[in-house]
């Protein structure tokens, strides 16, 4: 994923973190993951559940209108998936950068 080799900024090579470069690459990957997950978070709730509710209501899931379903059910399921993806990806990232706790 992240193969940045740019020198770490002075502040990031602080005492206490095992490796400054690793920590800053880790942080960049983390921010990238966060932004993509938050885009999905925004789209399902404010997008599908509020702004696009009318056009989506033209479709159905079971016997319910899709936009309404997103607002009362679907968005919550997607939130759960988002946190699950975050947990898995961050654990992978921790290991990759040697920052996993014991």
């Amino acid at each position: 994923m992240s193969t940045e080799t740019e020198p770490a900024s002075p502040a990031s090579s602080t005492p206490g973190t095992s490796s400054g470069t690793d920590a800053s690459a880790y942080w960049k990957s983390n921010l990238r993951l966060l932004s993509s997950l938050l885009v999905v978070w925004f789209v399902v709730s404010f997008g599908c559940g509020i702004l696009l509710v009318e056009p989506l209501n033209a479709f159905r899931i079971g016997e319910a209108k899709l936009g309404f379903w997103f607002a009362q059910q679907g968005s919550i399921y997607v939130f759960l998936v988002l946190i699950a993806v975050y947990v898995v990806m961050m654990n992978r990232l921790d290991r990759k950068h040697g920052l996993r706790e014991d």
Partner: protein
Amino acid sequence: MGTLALGAGLDVQGWTFLLVGFSFALYIGIAIWSRAGSTSEFYIAGKGVHPLANGMATGADWMSAASFIGMAGIISFAGYFGSVYLMGWTGGYVLLALLLAPYLRKFGKFTVPDFVGDRYESSLARVVAVLCAIFVSFTYVAGQMRGVGVVFSRFLEVDITLGVIIGTGIVFFYAVLGGMKGITYTQVAQYCVLIFAFTVPAVFISLMLTDNPIPQLGFIDTLGGTVGGDIARGESIGLLEKLDGLNEELGFAAYTAAPQQIIARSGPKGYTDVFAITLALMVGTAGLPHVIIRFYTVPRVRDARMSAFWALLFIALLYTAAPAVGAFGRTNLIEATRDAYYSAEAVPADSPAGEKVIPDWFRSWEDTGLLAWIDKNGDGRIQYRAGAPFTSATSKPVFASDSDGSPIRGEHGQRLLVVDGDAGGAGVVPTDNANELFIDRDIMVLANPEIARLPNWVIGLVAAGGLAAALSTAAGLLLVISTAVSHDLCKRTLAPNMTEKTELWVARGAAGIGVVGAALLGIYPPGFVAEVVALAFGLAASSFFPVIILGIFWKRMNRAGAISGMLCGIGFTAGYILKFKFMGGTREDWLLGISPEGIGTIGMLVNFAVGITVALLTAPPSQETQDLVESIRVPRGAGEAHEMQVPPAHAD
């Protein structure tokens, strides 16, 4: 007569006493088993809580009496508009999991003001945070104690005051004795009680109306089952489609129609408002101190992430079932009461066979004041239509009773209301619309077991569930209040040399005083509490959230920025709420069409804007602080350096 009433009462009440008593004994047992021996155990359960257990505890901590009893009812009356609560109160956990929980766990102290004070190297910032935390938590806890009293009075026919005192005694026992450790494990038990109590009736109602045992799937299914089949009258029609139709026949906006529901609630520019309310609830959820503090109790950063997943899963079990219960309850209630005769005798002899008469549960819930009927046109049938049936000082029915307190009944046996000509008077003033039926929204959860003709133990279970929801939230809030006083105010600000032993006693004392204060607010509720509870989210959104986010994600953020941001954010939000909630401001003057419930979103933006601008105009924070920020961003290393050095306890 007396023995009959006693014998009939023992069934439901006996079960209720048994189940409530059993659950209370369980909480006390757990409290004795998990006594706190140190401040670390008292504040954060010694960081030894398993992520799964913490997830359950967070679920119980978060879901209050309002979630358990009130939410399905709010949704069943608000239809689509109820979505703002569903999305707002779950979407906040995404923000919490991704943006706050792992980093605050790595920071690893005891409280939210700890983080604010240390990150911004300022006692002033810490004290501002303490005041925000106490204010938000105290308004919230008063509502919980009131909820305890209401459940007691409704199910056990105990006086509200006595109910509050019993509830207070229980919370006092395990919060003061066990601190966070005791609270955590009682909350795990309370979660199990409340989710079981919510799910059992939901499954049965779902079967009755859709023949589908899973409420979340019944919600999107066709009508079927014992009751649903009758309602569909042989037609294959979706539950929600039928409900849309029923709503429209009675003059309400269709249940699932977004624009109509939004305009009814927030005016023509409603979309901005819906957007703002949802965001304010999400951000407020992520910024509430009693929720954040739960993530300090797990052993590692990755446990904090996992814990957030479990928490949302456990919350979602109730939050996805609630809209289903709301829709089922409304469909069933409309069908059962619409144009039904109050008594079989009132049905005219010449009317066709099979005229509808109200079901038995109608009368028992009339006795509790959750239903009331005022026969405006004198035809002996219940007309349920859009609009309030009457107005009164409390917006609730006022039942007539004679001098010895027994109810006065009308010609059909219905409870009569006190009617007067003056809205400020002691009675109700009938409105001139066609609606004759008053329905308290709490009925959707409380009456479900009875409406579904479930066994008596299920009704007792719902009472125990409502109490579990209220007590668990109250305990979590009390802990925030007690740590804010003993740790943030005394130990970190006023008396840094205090021994651990003294601090533990101060913490217990603060929890004790807090619980008594909350009980008093529960017994003598000031009129504004309910209003303020709903607005606590806006205050949390506009104060804590931006300061914590910037503290983690922007190293350049400094003390001046944080303090000015917090003060401007919460000042703007509180001022707006005061103007429009308490000083008679009207909807026409709302800023950008945003209601006081949604203004926290703007307050948050004000906090961000002011904070960032001021930080850029003043000196960057010290190298030490920048190192602290670096260290909280990674899970491993430097963590233990920030553990608090606990001085050895003196033998005094």
